[in-house]
């Protein structure tokens, strides 16, 4: 079989390009530590989420913002067509500190995206999506449900506000800031 010299060159260049791509992604994942959503949030009974029986789940709490062992954790339930908390009341988190989100669904599939950022996760009934974010700047972000979830999907959005640490600590009862949220 005759393989043209240019073909061989091209083949080599293509392989090199591919390996380079993989290398940059490995670097991106391992070096600066871009966190991926993985399976460490565990599974959950969607029925219990729908009925609010959070006392029966060990990897999810009643929706709201908490401080657990000194770290900020946010528990969010997505349901047709709102985020609790997030939609009727903005989620408030501190800047320059790791915030861990736990998101699950009470009904169908949803999405959770802070518009224009790489904070992006699917929300799948039966699964808890867990991911950590450190916000460098104060300000607010829109929360968009980016997965079609029914006829009112386009109304499903919310807001997250990043406040300075001092403001966040100023909140009364700083140990467990429960969001009353939702419907």
């Amino acid at each position, binding site marked *: *079989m005759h393989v043209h010299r*240019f*073909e061989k060159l091209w083949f080599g260049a293509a*392989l090199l390009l591919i390996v380079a791509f993989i290398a940059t992604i490995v670097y991106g994942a391992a070096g600066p530590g871009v966190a991926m*959503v993985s399976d460490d949030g565990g599974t959950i009974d969607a029925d219990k989420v729908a009925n609010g029986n959070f006392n029966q789940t060990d990897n999810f709490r009643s929706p709201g913002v908490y401080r657990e062992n000194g770290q900020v954790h946010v528990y969010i339930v997505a349901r047709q067509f709102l985020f609790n908390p997030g939609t009727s009341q903005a989620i408030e988190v501190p800047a320059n500190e790791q915030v861990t989100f736990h998101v699950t669904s009470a009904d*169908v599939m949803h999405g959770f995206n802070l518009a224009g950022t790489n904070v*992006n996760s699917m929300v799948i009934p039966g699964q808890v999506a867990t991911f950590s974010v450190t916000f460098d700047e104060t300000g607010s972000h829109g929360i968009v449900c980016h997965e079609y979830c029914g006829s009112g999907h386009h109304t499903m959005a919310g807001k997250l506000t990043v406040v300075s640490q001092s403001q966040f600590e100023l909140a009364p009862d700083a140990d467990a800031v429960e969001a009353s949220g939702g419907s």
Partner: protein
Amino acid sequence: MATEHPDNVTDAPGETPEETDESYVEIDGTERRRAFVDRYPNAAQAVRVLFGVSFLSFAVGALFGLVQALHRTGVLRVIASADYYTILTAHGVLLALVFTTFGITGLFHWANTRSLGVAPTSQRLTWLWIGTMTLGTLFAGSTIVAGLFPDIPASADVLFTFYAPLEAHPLFYVGAALLIVGSWIAGVDWFLQYREWRSANPDSRIPLQSFMVMTTMLMWYLSTLGVAVEVVVFLIPWSLGLIGQVDPLLTRTLFWYFGHPVVYFWLLPAYMIWYTVLPKLAGGRLFSDPLARVVFVLFLILSTPVGFHHQYTDPGVPAGFKFVAMTNTMFLLLPSLLTLFTVVASIEHGARQRGGEGYLSWLRSLPWDRPAFTGIALSGIMFGAGGFSGMINAGMNINYLVHNTLWVPGHFHLTVGTAFALTLMAVSYWLVPQITGKRLKLRGVAALQPYVWFLGMVLMSNAMHRAGLAGVPRRTAEPEYQQFSYDTVVGGIAEMQMQIALGGTVLFVGAVMFLAVMLATWTLSPPNANLRVNGELPEPLSTATDSPKVLDNLKLWFAVAVVLVVLAYGIPLYSMVADGILSPGSVPFPV
């Protein structure tokens, strides 16, 4: 007169090789045309029916595309936003599943028959699969459309990905299953044809087009297994109430097990045209037949163990397996990059045969006024851009920025929406005369059409990519929210919206132009004309004869593909089903 046109050669002034007549032979003293329709009338009829259904779906799908482009940009809202999702389901199903599958099976039926030189073995078998696929389309299509009428108690507004636990009418899932089963039987039809050819040609290499048809179908069998299990084992019984719950992550994973290889099911037929027909249309020959075989074997092996790259942002899937999928995906770039080389080299060869010279000025010698050539060439250029945005999707970390934003439809309107769709349209300008026996009508409209599609897609896709970077979600009737407004990187949201609406409108015009040419050719052109196209495909510069025989060992490559799938999917699928195949379970949420 016609006898002065031997195959492949022409020196008549004003005629390009693409424009020579079909071959004629003398039988009993009369000149007989030997176009595809004359040699294989039954196969040609089957291809006509397949293309008919394909183009009809395209017509409806394109109209809905226009409705979407105008609606979600706020330019014109003729439907209620709640109905947007019915329209979007129809657009996705009709274009991504029906237009493609019927168009592809039509192309394959032609290509396998042409290259083996053997008529399909059983007409009943052919009609069986065409009937099965058509019935499936009618079932799925009618349940979707029923969603527009509140009085009809059926609905299927679940989009073409039909993620559980949103639940469609059972007929929707049955329809999807029938469409796939029909395509399986189609493959049997082609393998039987091959077997017949093989018994007459025990020592020959598999003809190239048939090789491409069969490798693609093997990939298709392996990959459709996922969606078949999803639909038949889980969704149909669940929507009928026979089982109470399904595991949404498991069904979604089964969908994406199929959902990436399906894009190669769309792409490989386009590649087949690029490899085997485009060089001829450019006036040259395919550069290398063995390399084309290598490319298709690589696709067979690598297409399926990559589906998790659609689930980078999914909870419940271990990060390590996302990583494996990413690596495989990057290696899938290899056959596409090789294709790029061969296609460009073959076109250049064609241009030089036509007298082209210089480093780049040979480009001017190509037949840019011939729609079959232009359409395919432009679709290749767009695919380059689509490949680039695809590499970005495939990078795990950047994916988090664009997942489920408008970037994604921006990407796949370049790939399936142009690389496949425009290739099918373009090759139809050349092929439809051969399967109908009618000369192409409205040639001026046809000559312009690929440019119109190209322009529309540049506008729409570019703006979709940019809007996606700003965070504008896909699959949304009204992407404007009370809670916030978007920060854009380049340009403003209003300008992007206008460009999407304008691009969508231009695309729709392009679709209408194509359909007008087809309709006019089919209905107005007299039968038994001189076709002005020639179905002969020239020999490649480097033929298969001296390439390693192992390339044609389809059983071996299929086995390798199965092993890779088991490696990529075995453990994660096992861990999803280990807690019970229906748990964590979800009850249906009817739409």
